[in-house]
């Protein structure tokens, strides 16, 4: 069952099954069985409204795909999966729903969390309630620095600024002779952090680079005509843009309308999140475009990725964005950790043993191998490349494709971001 609204009949059936199982366990083995029978309840938090709603939808779709797949193969240790879906909105309400999932629905684990504004608040709650929480896309960073270096129950996404760092590493490789750079990002932590990180990295490779303009329109703006005029006036060699939602499509369109990229290079660190809206008519070739942690069209992609892309396209008529991979990795790593912690006896493990099993665990995700670092941060690859029109779609894809690991582009546990970048040997 993968829907958030299970029907009354299903509910009654479950209730019956649960009561039956409880009765059976009372007769047979009072201590062992009660918790480990019936479906495994898994809480899912996802964004339903606002600019990030498509991101939330992608994460949920991948989680449902995973649950269906696991259930078809017999569940986790023989128990079917039941998803309990709640909405991620503002921090206060989301914390309440997190508590509800744990205390009322009694889920084994909570998956999800996209906005770091929200997940910063969820981290301490997960620690407090003693239930594993695996975050899709949200971290517990304030700005670019970690606030929970030694969590027990909270498992966090990759650091937000990694894609800007990857773009900073790739910029000098593809755009030689860049002297001046303009930047545009959303006016909140992510936009500012990406811009700061990108500048810090690029300065290491091109010491005399000048940053001539920075613009921070607020999230949700749909008209960038004036911003583009200002970018044109700045006469920068290159524009760096960290937009990730519909505004990435809009600025691309409005930039094409005035021919911006005829004279300027472009780096879009995160626009791969809305990749299938970047139509060829207005998205030029030759831009650096980031797809975060999964590239749907990876020529070296696994059979699992190809199957997922095919079924996602068939069901939703879209090509999946990276959030799917975050969500799949979280869910699948939880399953593998449970099985590992269960040991040869296949007895359902305590929550504390599951989180221990997660630490350092590496599994096969949609995008390839992904793992949990010992301090509960996701390790994975980032996919970026140069836009091309040579494909069978009506939108751009990337080639050549660059794959950069978080081992190279994410600050190590316990380090300060800018000190770490300053210490690079380039």
């Amino acid at each position, binding site marked *: 069952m993968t829907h958030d609204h299970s029907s009354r009949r299903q509910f009654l059936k479950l209730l019956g099954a649960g009561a039956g199982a409880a009765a059976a366990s009372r007769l047979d083995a009072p201590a062992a069985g009660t918790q480990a029978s019936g479906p495994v309840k898994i809480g899912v938090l996802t964004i339903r409204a606002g600019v990030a709603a*498509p991101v939330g939808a992608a994460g949920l779709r991948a989680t449902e795909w995973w649950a269906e797949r696991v259930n078809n193969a017999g569940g986790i240790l023989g128990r079917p999966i039941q998803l309990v879906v709640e909405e991620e909105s503002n921090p206060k309400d989301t914390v309440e729903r997190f508590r509800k999932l744990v205390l009322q629905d009694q889920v084994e684990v909570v998956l999800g969390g996209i906005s770091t504004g929200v997940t910063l608040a969820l981290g301490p709650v997960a620690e407090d309630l003693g239930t594993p929480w695996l975050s899709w896309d949200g971290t517990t960073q304030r700005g670019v620095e970690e606030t929970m270096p030694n969590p027990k129950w909270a498992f966090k996404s990759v650091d937000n600024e990694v894609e800007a760092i990857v773009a900073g590493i790739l910029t000098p490789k593809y755009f030689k002779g860049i002297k001046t750079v303009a930047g545009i990002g959303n006016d909140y932590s992510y936009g500012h952090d990406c811009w700061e990180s990108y500048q810090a990295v690029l300065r290491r490779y091109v010491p005399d680079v000048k940053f001539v303009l920075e613009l921070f329109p607020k999230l*949700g703006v749909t*008209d960038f005509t004036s911003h583009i005029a200002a970018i044109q006036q700045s006469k920068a060699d290159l524009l760096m843009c960290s937009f990730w939602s519909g505004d990435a499509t*809009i600025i691309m*369109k*409005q930039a094409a309308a005035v021919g911006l990229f005829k004279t300027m290079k472009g780096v879009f660190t995160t626009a791969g999140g*809305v990749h299938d*809206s970047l139509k060829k*008519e207005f998205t030029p070739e030759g831009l650096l475009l980031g797809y975060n942690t999964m590239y749907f069209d990876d020529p070296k992609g696994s059979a699992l990725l190809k199957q997922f892309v095919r079924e996602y396209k068939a069901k939703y008529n879209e090509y999946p964005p990276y959030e799917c991979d975050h969500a799949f990795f979280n869910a699948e790593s939880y399953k593998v950790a449970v099985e590992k912690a269960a040991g040869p006896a296949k007895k359902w493990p305590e929550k504390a043993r599951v989180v221990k099993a997660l630490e350092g665990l590496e599994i096969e995700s949609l995008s390839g191998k992904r793992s949990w670092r010992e301090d509960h941060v996701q390790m994975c690859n980032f996919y970026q490349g140069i836009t091309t029109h040579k494909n069978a779609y*009506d939108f751009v894809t990337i080639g050549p494709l660059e794959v950069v690991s978080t081992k190279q582009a994410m600050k190590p546990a316990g380090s300060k971001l800018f000190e770490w970048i300053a210490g690079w040997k380039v």
Partner: protein
Amino acid sequence: MVAAGLQVVFGVQKIFNLACGSFYALGAYVGVSAVGWYVGAGGPPALFIVPLALAGLAVGAVGIVVERGLLRFVYDRDETFQLLMTFAIVLMMEDAIRLTWGTAPRSTAGLYLAYGQVQLLGATAPVYNLIVIAASLAIALAIGWLLARTAFGRIIRATADNREMAEALGVDMRRVYAEVFTLGTALGTLGGALVIPTTAAMSEMGIELIVEAFAVVVIGGLGSMRGAFGGALVVGVLRAIAISVYPELEMLLIYLIVIAVLAARPRGLFGGAAA
């Protein structure tokens, strides 16, 4: 245009219609669908503006439904009720849009550039933008003509000036209200439809716009059509200047102007006695 719709409705019905932003969003989504259908049916891309504008106008009919079905019950209530009612419409429309079109941004692909670009004063401008500017001017002139020269316009102005007197003279207030609200709605939906090729439709675009339209109206003067036009020009130009001179000021600037206008000319730049 949205500001003009807001003005028409406020001037006559004295309702500050927050839902104007939702009508704008609705127009945008319907515009995307209409163009998608038109291109899918094999229509020549060069004429895409025709189904776009028609769809924008047609969906303005939702105004009658909202007016007859909801708003007419709160005319005699306190302004707070009316504001709450229109805000409720904003929330409902946003969800209705999400249900119908989903949460992903929708856009009309590359049609924006179907009319090509021209060089103007050393800058490249897409022809479509010029068409929209021309269309907006034409609509502004048409509304001006409608209000100043026709019997319908005279009735509207009379109602705006003195509702009881107009009613005493035999004006069917129910009809005028329905017509005016539909006109205001159609201005919003048409505005949304026309702007959509240049951008992408997002479900929360309505709320984004309300604040701006509100600022435009306050600067221009509540209930004044010239005010809507002047206010929109002031806000648009000053924002563009702010972004290129001192970007941090962009958002703040609009509110500073609103404060300045409210302090110096509480009726707005163009607000006469009628407002």
